């Protein structure tokens, strides 16, 4: 039994939240909407997992870096944490990309004004 995987996931989640906090991207932009998106994302992915497990496609490994604790057959305790991380990562990347796309034209316009 190991906690390396779980600890890495929690570390990753902390990093995402730090980015979120620093650039006011997701939870720090609109906490209510972000909570809703996160809940929908995690539940959607968990449903997908459940379907895969039910069909006998997804099998849990016996890796030594995982705790081995299960919350359902073939579903380790780390899985919802991973899905939370995936959802946060997706949304931080998307909102970050939007921020970049909105800044680029503004900067170009600024440069053109300076040149003129």
């Amino acid at each position, binding site marked *: 039994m190991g906690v390396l*995987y779980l600890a890495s996931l929690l570390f990753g989640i902390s990093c995402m939240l730090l980015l979120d906090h620093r650039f006011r991207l*997701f939870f720090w*932009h*609109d*906490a*209510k*909407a*972000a909570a*809703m*998106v996160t809940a*929908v*994302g995690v539940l*959607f*992915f968990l449903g*997908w997992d459940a*379907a*895969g497990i039910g*069909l*006998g*496609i*997804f*099998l*849990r*490994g*016996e*890796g*030594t*870096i*995982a705790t081995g604790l299960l919350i359902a057959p073939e579903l380790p305790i*780390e899985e919802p944490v991973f899905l939370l991380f*995936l*959802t946060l*990562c*997706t*949304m931080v*990347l*998307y*909102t*970050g*990309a*939007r921020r*970049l*796309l*909105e800044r680029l034209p503004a900067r170009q316009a600024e440069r053109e004004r300076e040149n003129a």
Partner: protein
Amino acid sequence: MTYLWLALAFIAAAAVAGVVFAGRGARQGEASKHWKAVGLAFAALAVLTAVFDSVMIGMELFHYDSSHILGLKAGLAPIEDFAYPLAGVVALPGLWMWLTRRRNAGAQSNLKGLVPQAILASRPVSWINTAYPFAAAMLLTTREIDWVLIVGTFYFLIPYNLAMYGINDVFDYESDLKNPRKGGIEGALLKPHLHRPMLWLAAITNVPFLLVLALAGGPAAWISLTVSAFAVAAYSVAGLRFKERPVLDSLTSSTHFVSPAVVGLALAGADVTPGLLILLAAFFLWGMAAHAFGAVQDIEPDRQAGIGSIATVIGARRTVRLAVVLWLVAGLAMLATPWPGPLAAIIAVPYIVNCAPYWTVTDTTAARTNVAWRRFIWLNYGSGFLVTLIFILQWGLTS
């Protein structure tokens, strides 16, 4: 092949949802930026997936029944695994854009400052007063630090106080407004638009801890946790308002500090002995005295706001005297506990000394007791120190 069909089904559902949400959520000219950002985010996610999925499969965190997958791989990651990030990035940003469309159109989030306000409202200087009784009661019984002790101590340190004072400040808004004492170390005025979010914050931060602690214990823990949580809410919520019912106000307030200790004892499975009951009774009397004395300084603002308390009903002088007597009885009760309990009797003395000069206070001079109240807050730290020394002595005597 089965995995591919499963993945395609979920991606299709995600794509439909994503297109619908984006169509409804996007403002003029926003759609192209939205899909560009989705593309950028997916490119980054695909790289991350290729790398980390390979690492995770390499570490044997999970594997697939090979008869179900296509066999096409990026590193060790089967191509089907890219379906998760793809479905997520197609659907969730659309949902986000749809949910935030009104806000972007101009409405500002009104949650700004909720967390700092909640922390300030929870009186950080008094956090230890609820966490300490729990931790001490549990540690002295089990003599080991386990996860229940850590989780419970954290709960009674922060979420519990967040709920207790957060709920209190929401329902006390009117009287606080007229009280210059609030807004600093002893409490904070809570802006009306934060009232509802504050109640939600209290519920969200408390319920999971209560459930986890209840699962960790038996019926005794369930009863004590229920009493504790009920006392927290009943003290101030509209309809119950125990804080406005003389005597019941002091009883409820004292429960706020004694119940964490009872929860700790229940979770630890402590034996109920006469000595333990006397100790808890003395602690309870101490808590009642503390509440009653604290209410004296608020007589004027409470009366103006039409709020009743033990002090507004029986008057400043009798309340002060009651507090002194309660502290005295609490100290005398400790003399009846097994050694080294009687040493704790000395703790009553500074409280009596601090409070006694107001023996002849009147309702009009009641506000002056605030000086003693400020001393009282720091006196608690000194008492905590003495109690800790006695606990260490007790620990040494019984091991």
